[in-house]
C-alpha cells in the first residue's frame, strides 16, 4: 500500500471553491442563452463571494498541505481577498461592456475565475513549482482574455504581444527554477532558505543558484512590469478590452508581487545584501521610466498603462524593505491601487458606451457638465494615484516610503517622493480636463446602473480606507 500523506482541506478550501466553481460555471454557461448572459456573471460573483467567505474561518491560522507545497497564512488570505475583490469589481464593470462591444461570451467570466485561481496559487504557493503553476494559469487565461475582443485587431495584437513576451519570460522562469533546484536540491521555498542559511552552497553551485534566482526574479518581474521587462505593458494594456486591462493591472500585478515577495523573503531571505541593491536600482528606474512615459501621453488608457509601471516601482519598495512593515505596506498599497485603478478604468468603460474608443484626454473634457458622478469618481481616482490625501493612494505611498526609509533606502525614497511630485502633473491634467474645459465631441456615456455601482463602490472605498486606514492596517 502506498501511503497517501494526509491532506488538510481547509488550506485549499478557497482554491477548491474557485476551481470547482469555475469548472461548474463552464458547464452551466453552455445552457444559458446569450440574452441572459448576465446570469453567468452573477454566478461567477456568487462563486467569488463563497470563496471570500471561506477565507474568514481560517483567519489567523497558519498551515500547509500537499507535502508543504501550498500554505495558508494571513498574507495569503489578505491577498486572496484583494484578488477576489479585483475580480468581482471587474465582473461588475464588464456587464455593460461586453454586449456593447459584441463580445458577450460566457467564457469571459469563467476565465476570470480561473485567473483568480492562478493568483491564489501564487499567493499560497510555498514551492517554486506551485508558483510556476499559478503564474502559468494566470498568464494563459490573461492571454486569452487580452485577445477576447478578437475581431478587433488591436485586441488580437495585444494578445499576441503578451503571449510572445510572456513565453519568453516563462522560459527564463522555468530555467531559473531548474537551476535553483540543481544547486540546492529543493524547490520548496522554506527548504531553499534553510539550505542557504546553512551556507554550504559554494563554488559552481553558488553560481547556478544565483543565476537561477536572477531568472526567477525576471520571470516574476515581467509580470509586475519591472523595467526593462515592461515594454509589453503599454501595448497590451491599450489593446485589451478595458475591463481586462483593469483586471491585469491590478490583480495580475498583485499576484506577481505575492510570488515575488514569497520568493525573496522566504527563499532568498539570507541573500538580502545581494538582491536589495539591484532591485532598489530597478525600482528607481521603474518609477522614473513609468512616470516619464506617462507624461506625454494624450491617450488616457495608455497613460494609465505607463502609470501602472510607475506604481509597480512604488509597490516594490515594500518587499525591498524586507520587514514586516514593508510587507504590510505592500499589501495596503496593492489594495489601494486595486480600488483606484478599477475606478479609473471603470470611468473609461462608461465612456466607451458606443463600443468605440474614447480615451483621448479631450474626450474627458467637460465631463463634469455631462456626468458629475463620473467626473468626481475620475478625479478621486486620479488624486489617489497621485497620492494626495485623504485618499487611499496617499496613505499607501506614505506607508511604503516610511517602511523603505526605515530599511535604510533613503535615496530610493528620495527619488520616489520627487518623482511622485512631478507625476502629479499628468494626473492633474486629467482633473483639469474634466473640470476646466468644454467637451470637444459628443461622447455617449453609459448609464448602466451596475457599472455605476461598481465605480461608486470603488470610489467610496478609496476615500474610506484613506480616512480610516488604521483598522485595516492592523488587520493586515
Amino acid at each position, binding site marked *: *500500500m*502506498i501511503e*497517501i500523506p494526509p491532506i488538510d482541506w481547509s488550506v485549499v478550501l478557497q482554491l477548491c471553491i474557485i476551481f470547482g466553481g469555475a*469548472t461548474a460555471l*463552464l*458547464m452551466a454557461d*453552455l445552457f444559458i442563452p446569450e440574452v441572459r448572459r448576465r446570469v453567468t456573471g452573477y454566478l461567477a460573483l456568487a462563486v467569488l463571494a463563497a470563496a471570500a467567505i471561506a477565507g474568514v474561518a481560517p483567519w489567523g491560522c497558519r498551515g500547509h498541505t500537499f507535502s508543504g507545497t501550498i500554505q495558508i497564512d494571513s498574507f495569503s488570505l489578505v491577498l486572496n481577498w484583494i484578488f477576489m475583490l479585483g475580480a468581482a469589481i471587474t465582473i461588475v464593470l464588464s456587464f455593460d461592456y461586453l454586449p456593447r462591444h459584441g463580445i458577450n461570451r460566457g467564457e469571459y467570466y469563467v476565465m476570470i475565475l480561473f485567473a483568480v485561481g492562478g493568483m491564489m496559487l501564487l499567493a499560497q504557493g510555498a514551492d517554486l513549482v506551485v508558483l510556476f503553476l499559478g503564474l502559468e494559469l494566470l498568464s494563459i487565461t490573461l492571454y486569452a482574455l487580452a485577445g477576447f475582443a478578437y475581431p478587433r485587431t488591436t485586441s488580437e495584437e495585444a494578445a499576441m504581444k503578451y503571449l510572445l513576451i510572456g513565453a519568453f519570460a516563462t522560459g527564463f522562469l522555468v530555467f531559473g527554477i531548474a537551476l535553483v533546484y540543481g544547486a540546492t536540491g529543493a524547490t520548496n521555498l522554506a527548504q531553499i532558505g534553510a539550505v542557504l542559511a546553512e551556507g554550504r552552497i559554494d563554488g*559552481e*553551485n553558488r553560481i547556478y543558484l544565483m543565476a537561477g534566482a536572477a531568472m526567477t526574479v525576471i520571470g516574476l518581474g515581467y509580470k509586475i512590469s519591472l523595467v526593462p521587462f515592461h515594454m509589453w505593458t503599454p501595448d497590451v494594456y491599450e489593446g485589451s478590452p478595458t475591463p481586462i486591462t483593469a483586471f491585469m493591472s491590478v490583480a495580475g500585478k498583485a499576484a506577481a508581487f505575492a510570488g515575488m515577495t514569497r520568493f525573496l523573503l522566504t527563499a532568498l531571505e539570507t541573500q538580502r545584501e545581494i538582491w536589495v541593491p539591484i532591485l532598489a536600482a530597478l525600482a528607481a528606474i521603474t518609477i522614473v521610466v513609468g512616470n516619464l512615459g506617462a507624461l506625454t501621453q494624450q491617450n488616457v488608457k495608455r497613460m494609465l498603462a505607463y502609470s501602472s509601471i510607475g506604481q509597480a516601482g512604488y509597490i516594490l519598495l515594500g518587499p525591498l524593505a524586507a520587514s514586516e512593515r514593508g510587507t504590510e505596506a505592500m499589501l495596503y498599497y496593492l489594495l489601494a491601487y486595486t480600488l483606484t485603478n478599477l475606478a479609473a478604468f471603470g470611468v473609461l468603460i462608461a465612456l466607451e458606451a458606443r463600443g468605440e474608443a474614447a480615451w483621448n484626454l479631450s474626450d474627458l473634457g467637460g465631463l463634469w457638465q455631462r456626468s458629475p458622478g463620473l467626473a468626481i469618481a475620475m478625479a478621486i481616482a486620479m488624486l489617489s494615484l497621485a497620492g494626495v490625501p485623504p485618499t487611499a493612494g496617499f496613505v499607501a505611498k506614505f506607508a511604503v516610503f516610511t517602511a523603505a526609509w526605515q530599511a535604510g533606502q533613503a535615496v530610493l525614497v528620495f527619488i520616489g517622493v520627487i518623482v511622485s511630485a512631478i507625476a502629479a502633473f499628468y494626473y492633474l491634467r486629467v482633473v483639469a480636463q474634466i473640470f476646466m474645459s468644454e467637451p470637444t465631441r459628443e461622447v455617449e456615456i453609459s448609464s448602466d446602473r451596475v457599472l455605476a455601482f461598481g465605480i461608486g463602490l470603488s470610489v467610496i472605498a478609496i476615500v474610506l480606507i484613506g480616512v480610516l486606514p488604521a483598522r485595516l492596517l492592523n488587520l493586515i
Partner: protein
Amino acid sequence: MLANYAFIGIFFIAALIFPLIPLIAAWRLRPARPTATKLDTYECGLEVIGETRVQFRVQYYLYALAFVIFDVEMVFLYPWAVAYNQLGLYGLLAMTVFIVILVFGLAYEWKKGALEWV
C-alpha cells in the same frame, strides 16, 4: 556536479551524430546523375499547380488538440492502473475527478461545435 551534466551533453552530441552518419554516407557514396524528369516533383500523375504551402483548416488543429488531451489522459491513466491496488479509494476518487474534468472539457467542445466538420 558539472560532470553529471556532461553525460547529457555527450548524449546530445551522440544523438546528433548518429542520424547524420548514414545521411552523409549516403550522400557521399551514391551516384548523382540528375535529369529533368528525375528532379520533377512527381514522375507520374498531375502537374503541380500553385503553392506547395496550403492553409489547413482550423478544425485540424482542434482535433489535434483534443487528441493530445486524451493522449495525456492515457499517460496519467497507465501508471495509475499499474498501481491501482496500492492506491486505494483515494486514488480512485482522484482519478474519477480527473476524468470528470476531462469529460467536462469534451462536453464543452462538443457543445461549442468544435467536433463538427464544417
